[in-house]
């Protein structure tokens, strides 16, 4: 699916998104909510960012538009088309949000004003932020609605008159209005039914090819991530635990957390019976972390895991794209997988 070829070819000025060493501190927490996140999305590439609640996956995607919680202190660089979002002035930030990067939220109902017509909603940003004439904006809205498979009669409807799936398609049309180079989709199908999910995901994939945008797909659903993305990042406790090409990562996970997540998902193909649940809870934000954040729940953990945080290092070679994992014992995991 991907057009990128060389390792690290996606970094640098031609990447749609290049996050380097992003740290995010919130007041009242004992550790950074994001701790040194590195992530890239190449043009036309679909990248999935997987994690459980509290892992920092939504904060990572929101930081791309600098939608940060009050009091947050960000370090590192978030480059969209080579320019640092964290250093932008309000005008540049508005241009970024209107034209360069767009976000699709989890709950389309919560993201629309129930008292405004869809037409107003779609054209508002262009008319107000980019001074596009109303007629031209409406014309574009009609074309975008057509691209997501909706007729122009939708323009005159209110959000309450559309189903969840239709409304999420409107949200996708809205995201495309400014012709962005990057789309951030934050759990865009979680609030939808499974059959509708397929439709929305198929549409996103289509449009990504058609409009040449990069897509960062944030989800908690490993199966979905495997199904749609070129590369996957798995996050745990504000850090990237593992990243690599989707297929390889799910067939040969090299981080115990990725493997445990795969094992604990009730799937249609796995043998029936008890699930291999991960014991315990993810670390709280009030708790300082030394060493590997997953160590207390990990069955491979040894003394080194609680003493020293593992670096994100390459675990497999011979791939066009790097497979990295942050684990002191990732080579042991291969053996475990081979045995099983």
């Amino acid at each position, binding site marked *: 699916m991907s057009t990128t070829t060389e390792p690290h070819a996606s970094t640098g000025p031609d990447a749609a998104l290049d996050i380097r060493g992003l740290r995010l501190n919130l007041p009242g927490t004992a550790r950074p909510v994001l701790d040194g996140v590195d992530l890239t999305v190449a043009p036309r590439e679909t990248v999935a960012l997987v994690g*459980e*609640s509290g892992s920092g996956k939504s904060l990572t995607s929101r930081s791309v538009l600098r939608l940060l919680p009050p009091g947050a202190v960000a370090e590192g660089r978030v480059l969209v088309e080579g320019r640092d979002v964290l250093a932008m002035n309000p005008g540049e930030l508005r241009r970024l949000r209107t034209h360069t990067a767009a976000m699709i939220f989890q709950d389309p109902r919560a993201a629309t004003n129930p008292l405004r017509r869809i037409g107003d909603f779609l054209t508002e940003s262009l008319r107000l932020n980019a001074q596009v004439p109303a007629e031209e904006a409406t014309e574009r809205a009609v074309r975008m609605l057509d691209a997501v498979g909706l007729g122009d009669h939708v323009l005159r409807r209110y959000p309450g008159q559309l189903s*969840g799936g239709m409304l999420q398609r409107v949200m996708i049309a809205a995201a495309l209005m400014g012709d962005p180079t990057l789309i951030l989709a934050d759990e865009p199908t979680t609030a939808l*039914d*499974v*059959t*509708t*999910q*397929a*439709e929305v*995901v*198929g*549409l996103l*994939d*289509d449009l990504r090819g058609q409009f040449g945008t990069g897509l960062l797909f944030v989800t*908690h*659903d*490993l*199966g*979905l991530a*495997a*199904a*749609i993305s070129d590369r996957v990042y798995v996050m745990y406790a504000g850090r990237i635990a593992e990243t690599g090409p*989707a*297929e390889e990562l*799910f067939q040969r996970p090299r981080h115990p957390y990725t493997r*445990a*997540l795969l094992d*604990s*998902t*009730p*799937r*249609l*193909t796995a043998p*029936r019976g*008890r*699930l*291999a*649940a*991960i*014991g315990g*809870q993810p670390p709280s934000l009030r708790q300082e972390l030394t060493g590997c954040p997953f160590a207390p729940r990990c069955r491979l953990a040894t003394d080194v895991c609680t003493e020293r945080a593992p670096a994100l290092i390459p675990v497999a070679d011979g791939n066009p794209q790097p497979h990295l994992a942050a684990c002191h014992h990732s080579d042991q995991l291969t053996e475990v997988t081979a045995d099983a």
Partner: protein
Amino acid sequence: MPDTLREAGDAPRPDTPGGRDSAAVLEVDGLCRAFGEVKAVDDVSFTLARGGSLGIVGESGSGKTTTARIVVGLERADAGRVRVGGGSGGPQRGRAARLARAREVQMVFQDPFLSLDPRTTVEAVLRETLRLHFPGRDHPARIAELLDQVGLGAREASALPRQLSGGQRQRVAIARALAVEPRILVLDEAVAALDVSVQAQILNLLADIRKQTGIAYLFITHDLGVVRCVTDDVIVMRHGRVVEAGSTAGVLADPRHPYTRLLLDSVPRPGWDPKHIAAARRAL
């Protein structure tokens, strides 16, 4: 559409959901409920065996939640019959009937963040239920036993809901339902709001509890993976009607109704083709 119902064509199995057998703990027959013009539940029948586990699968608007709410008595039916534990099942009023119903059927709700009173500690939640149903028993001992059963300790007993994680809250909700010692537990998307790793813990816990107590589950969910994991039998609902029913393994391995096939195909997996599913959905 009725010809795809397995009960009609399949070889008879003693524990098919449609079958009538004496060991049934819940019999639902011809249930109907309309909200205005919309028929939310339309002629739904099924049987839940004693100690069995029946899944109701469907998407939003399929009527699965309304069915569950009628079974626990939160919603009334326009027509049809719900027979719980061999009782008469007619509409009864008054304290005694209310308590008797509660002792037959209990429910665990979807959202563990909202289904507990924010001002009541875990211990007080359980004590309140025990006082209502079993006045004069040794409550502290029973509370400790219930908490132990769902894997919570003394530390959580004095906690308020907001001090607990989602998984812990759902454990409290399960303990609260078990406190009544019901014969049926209705689980309405009880693991849908939980993270994958926590969801697995709760699913394992539910399996253990059924093995220990012989309680029967009515499991309402949209997730076929979950259905496969915890149910013996399944019914598939669409637009208020049952489109397919049978043993879980059978239905998932060899779906007869196109809608069931669509649901199965829609589960994301490597090599998944969303466009094919979208086309199949429109064709249906």
